[in-house]
């Protein structure tokens, strides 16, 4: 086989998440948001960098190069994931009860089978399903119900971090709201931290405390969610905002979206700033040097040379 190149799905991403916090990750397909999620649950190994995990007692472990025996079971119990397509993420040949039981048995949560059964029924009613549905198979359920089953499975071991990768994008609008409400309710009750990955900015805003905007494997802007919406600073974030339809036929936005072209291939990413080929404000420096994230206000970071210029000029002016 001929190797034509290596995909840099994730280039450089720095962030941390603490208990009860929700970090939202937005970006378009191929920007690396799912790769990030999968790297965090150790489905993919990072090429470089480090991932540090803190166990419930506050002890830290470097899990970059795999999970040691010592930490494996706690980490797997602590970090769970919900996937985008509930038609693919449930085994069609397992009953709902067996699907939900799998993580419970792996982590040996119960000695008593009766308690275990009661717990599965509790989980089903917690996610808004009839407890008797446990005997059924996935094909008997709609997309929304399947996503509820996937949620029941992921919270069964009481994780401290739940990674939700586009949990509502395969669902109809009216069902989407129900799943979002359910996730919020579960987060409140169980004090979980969420990493919420989506391309839908409205949904990410609703869920998140902080938002990271990704483009071609890089975080181009990160800030508290209000700041991202009130003061989008990176040209890519601004373009993304301008592309959301505003549901008002008297104020149509079509034709005002300035973003031309498409994201380049991650096999052969552009030099300098990953966004510069599509950026309307590009300067000479953008093709040469990759901008570093600059803090433009408390907790609001933006990786753009325009920012450096305005900061420099205000400094020299002052």
């Amino acid at each position: 086989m001929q190797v034509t190149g290596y995909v840099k799905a994730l280039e450089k991403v720095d962030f941390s998440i603490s208990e009860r916090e929700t970090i939202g990750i937005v970006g378009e397909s191929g920007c690396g948001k799912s790769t990030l999620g999968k790297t965090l649950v150790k489905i993919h190994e990072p090429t470089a960098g480090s991932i540090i995990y803190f166990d419930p007692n506050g002890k830290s472990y470097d899990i970059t190069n795999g999970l040691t025996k010592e930490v494996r079971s706690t980490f797997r119990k602590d970090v769970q994931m919900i996937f985008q397509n509930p038609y693919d993420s449930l085994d069609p040949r397992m009953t709902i009860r067996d699907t939900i039981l799998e993580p419970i048995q792996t982590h040996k949560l119960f000695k008593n089978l009766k308690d275990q059964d009661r717990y599965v029924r509790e989980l089903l009613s917690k996610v808004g399903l009839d407890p008797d549905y446990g005997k059924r198979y996935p094909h008997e359920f709609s997309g929304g119900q399947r996503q509820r089953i996937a949620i029941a499975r992921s919270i069964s071991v009481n994780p401290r971090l739940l990674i939700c990768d586009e949990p509502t994008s395969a669902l109809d609008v009216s069902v989407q709201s129900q799943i979002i409400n359910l996730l919020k309710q579960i987060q409140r009750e169980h004090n979980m931290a969420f990493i919420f990955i989506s391309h839908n900015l409205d949904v990410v805003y609703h869920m998140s405390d902080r938002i990271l905007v990704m483009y071609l494997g890089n975080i181009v802007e990160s800030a508290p969610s209000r700041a991202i919406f009130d003061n989008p600073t990176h040209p890519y974030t601004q373009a993304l905002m301008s592309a959301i339809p505003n549901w008002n036929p008297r104020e149509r936005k079509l034709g005002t979206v300035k973003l031309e072209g498409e994201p380049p291939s991650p096999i052969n990413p552009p030099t300098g700033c990953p966004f510069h080929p599509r950026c309307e404000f590009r300067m000479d420096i953008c093709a040469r040097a990759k901008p570093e994230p600059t803090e433009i206000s408390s907790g609001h970071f933006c990786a753009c040379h325009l920012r450096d210029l305005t900061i420099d000029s205000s400094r020299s002016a002052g």
Partner: protein
Amino acid sequence: MTDTRRILTVENLKTYFKTPNGIVKAVDGISFHLDKGETLALVGESGCGKSVTAQSILGLIKVPPAKLTGSVVFKGQELVGLSDDKYRDIRGMQISMIFQEPMSAFDPLYTIGQQLMEIAKVHMPWSYQEAKQRIIDSLRLVHIPEPEKRYSEYPHEMSGGMLQRIMIAMALLPSPELIIADEPTTALDVTIQAQVLNLMQELQDSYNGSMIFITHDLGIVAEIADRVHVMYAGKIVEKASVIDLFENPLHPYTKGLLTSRVKREYKKEGKDLPYIKGHVPKASEFSTGCRFHSRCTYATETCKTTMPPEIETEKGHRVACFLFERDDLVENFANAKP
């Protein structure tokens, strides 16, 4: 006298499928019309019958086994019951379709040029050289960079957005009078979606063509439609101009759809998102009454047993709901917060 601006009239269209679990009434007696240059949006959630409506108009439903009744008149010609041969002169030529999944709508084994050439060969009187030139021009029209090079490339060498633009070029190649677009941007990213919608609108304006735009996304409807028909469980429940639909929605289902948008206020106020309770009834579970009654907060006994008639509340605004039969109820409903 026939109206020369009228391009399509659909009258009491019914498409039924026989399944082991009984008859599925995918489209159950819908009527609408379309004028030249107009964009009509058919909106609804999955399974409401919007795609089957499109396929019925295009003669893509195999009859039998399916049962198709009613009337579809395109430029004065009845399409229901038309022979396959005659349909072929209309489909792809005067009416063309843009599908949802650009990745699966193209044959991976043929180049883009070969696939577009097929349309030209079947429908157009052009010579090979002329056809090739026109195809390259049409690719340029949909902003494909280096169209001469792309002409001999395969679908896997393109991105989703590019393929969708090529499909638009393909649909426009014979200059059709009616384009049916079935969720053409659902598989695309938001910034690419905006580009594709822009392009479709631009081209439609220059051709003065008509379009039926099928989508579940009311955000897109607000951007492109002239008129909107809301579908639910095989029926059209509300017909309105796009302004009326957003500013004065009447049917409880339409109201429900409009409130399902994730607004920024909900987070500030710490509120749960509003949603429509219940679920769409299965086609085998339809009652004789209004199909929305089990989810409707305003449902009465009548709603459970009798199908509501289509009521015209003002010119061009029609709703299939008993609430609008009596004026006093209309007042109450209009003032009620969803």
